[in-house]
């Protein structure tokens, strides 16, 4: 492979990996706190993309032109808000009644939630692909071509993740979050309002996934369908496991790594049909050989 091709593939991989990372962060935070896999997370990402499409598909009384920078920022913010509400609702309606139920029951509920949202979107919006009507100029950097949209997407997602890291490490809410994830009961005894922390975690995770969805629809131009979130959701989960579930920098690393590996596999003529299987093979390999992930620490199971 030529050097410029390799560099281009790396850029492609990092761009799709950034999206995986944005979703994976939500998985990892919820897992860190509740020890549950929020299967419906991928669908939240899909809802974000749907909001972006809805925003650009009609005029909305000419509030702001969606082609302007302000309009786009507003659109992404709306998507984040909608997804945040959705995330909180999912937690309140489906997961909170099961807070003390066995983990498998919560898992089954989460799978049900994922399918519920998918089919709700199917019924409300139909299965035909929906595209945001915007295109982006291409920038040439040596042998590498990057669209302006991709560049924005990359910078935005990296800054989102940096912001999240700051939030977790520097604020009081972040400290509460870490406390709950360290020891649920001890944190409650120390006066941490854990219900609020859980709601907050869901809200942040959902907002990030929503931003990811909206940006994929706007900057990549991917057609939105009800199953739009399923594969990215599963792959983001794989990224979270790859990086060590419960670990935010790990999720980012895992996402970027998965994106790059997929790009390299997808670019190979003989391997390209198997691109979707890569994530699963990686998952099983990690679970078998390094279940704590790349950056996670091994936890001894309590008996």
């Amino acid at each position, binding site marked *: 492979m030529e050097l410029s091709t390799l560099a281009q593939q790396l850029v492609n991989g990092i761009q799709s990996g950034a999206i995986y990372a944005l979703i994976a962060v939500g998985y990892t935070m919820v897992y860190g706190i509740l020890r*549950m*896999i929020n299967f419906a997370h991928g669908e939240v990402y899909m809802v974000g993309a749907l909001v972006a499409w809805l925003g650009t598909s009609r005029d909305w009384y000419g509030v702001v032109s969606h082609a302007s920078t302000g309009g786009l920022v507003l659109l992404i913010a709306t998507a984040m808000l909608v997804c945040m509400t959705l995330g909180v609702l999912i937690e309140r309606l*489906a997961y909170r*009644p*099961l807070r003390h*139920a*066995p*983990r*498998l*029951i*919560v*898992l*089954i*509920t989460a*799978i*049900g*939630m*994922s*399918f*519920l949202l*998918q*089919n*709700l979107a*199917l*019924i*409300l919006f*139909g299965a035909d692909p929906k595209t945001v009507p915007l295109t982006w100029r291409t920038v040439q950097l040596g042998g590498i071509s990057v669209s302006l949209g991709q560049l924005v997407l990359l910078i935005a997602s990296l800054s989102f993740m940096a912001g999240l890291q700051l939030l977790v490490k520097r604020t009081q809410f972040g400290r509460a979050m870490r406390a709950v994830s360290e020891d649920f009961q001890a944190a409650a005894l120390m006066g941490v309002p854990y219900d609020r922390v859980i709601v907050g975690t869901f809200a942040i995770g959902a907002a990030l996934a929503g931003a990811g969805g909206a940006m994929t629809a706007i900057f990549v131009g991917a057609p939105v369908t009800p199953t739009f979130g399923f594969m990215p959701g*599963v792959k983001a*989960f794989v990224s979270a*496991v790859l990086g060590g579930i419960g670990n935010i920098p790990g999720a980012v690393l895992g996402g970027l790594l998965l994106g790059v590996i997929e790009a390299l596999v997808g670019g190979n003529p003989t391997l390209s*049909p*198997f691109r*979707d*299987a890569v*994530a*699963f*093979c990686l*998952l*099983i390999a990690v*679970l*078998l050989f390094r*279940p704590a992930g790349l950056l996670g620490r091994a936890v001894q199971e309590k*008996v």
Partner: protein
Amino acid sequence: MVRQALWCGVAIIICWALDRLLQAAVYGQWFGWLTDYTYRAFILVPLLFVTLAVSLNLINGITGQFSLGHAGFFAVGAYLSAGFSVYFASGWLAQVPPAWQGMAQFGLLLMAALIGAGAAALFGLIVGIPTLRLRGDYLAIATLGFGEIVRVLFENLDLFGAQRGFTGIPTWVGFGFCWYALLAIGCIAVSRNLLKSTHGLAFLSVREDETAAEVMGVPTTYYKVAAFVIGAMFAGAAGALLAHREGSIYPVDFKMDISIIVVTMVVLGGQGSITGSVLAGAGLKMLEELLRLLPVVTLFGREFQPSDFRMLAFALVLILTMIFRPQGLLGHRELSWATLRRWLWRSPKRVSAPPAEAISISGEGEQMRQP
């Protein structure tokens, strides 16, 4: 031994007689509503899903190993048995003299079904062993991954028609009722007998508390793998029958939706309850087909077949069951003549003997909940 074999014989004869009767009714158009379509939709497909649900119940319900990869086992059985029939068996059949065709076809179909079951069981072993180190949600994701990998593999194997679907499979199953019913009965019988044997307790102990079971000397590893192997075997046999009845199979027939639907059935019926799985499996599939018969409705300015709502309904059923009745319809209990009789003839005094003055309408409700 002789006794069991006699029972087997009785089951086979009854199924065979029913098969003939149904065939006469369907092809002779005895009833207006009993067509090939309704027969397939309300009898065959539910039977298939009963087999799938009961076999998954063995893994999910009885042994407590949450598997989301049942469609994968189903696919392995369907594809490999179909491959055997297309590439080997039909060639052999062509050399058989016409008088023996029927017998040969029967033998080859049995062989194909066994190959499907065996391949799926082997696959179950392959999946079972490495995933033993995983528990709960990790296991669920890993099995989901295995299921998807199987599908991606068959999507790309030209030998099996890839995404075009594997067509031209000899339709040796023919009418099918006999085969489908026997497989379902076999699956139920094996599950029930396992559960009643000492092995059954071992399976249950793995579900209830793996660590405690291990401490008590139950080889948990062995039982976990055994559950996977047996469950996969029946799913594989079901796949083999599907392939040889429909004549063509497609990778999308085995997508994740199937796994989710079967999980819904097991969960709704009550994890661990065989009769629960049977009821939920047959019931949900029939309900789904009933939805298809309803007229088209217009919502949000678009037209819908009521069956478009079926996945939505499955999802809702799953969530609501988990929140309001996590033990499912039947819980761990079984529906049997004994329980039915007890339930019907039970006198209020036997359960508990409330003082005469305390018997009231609300008091009855309390007693109904007693096991």
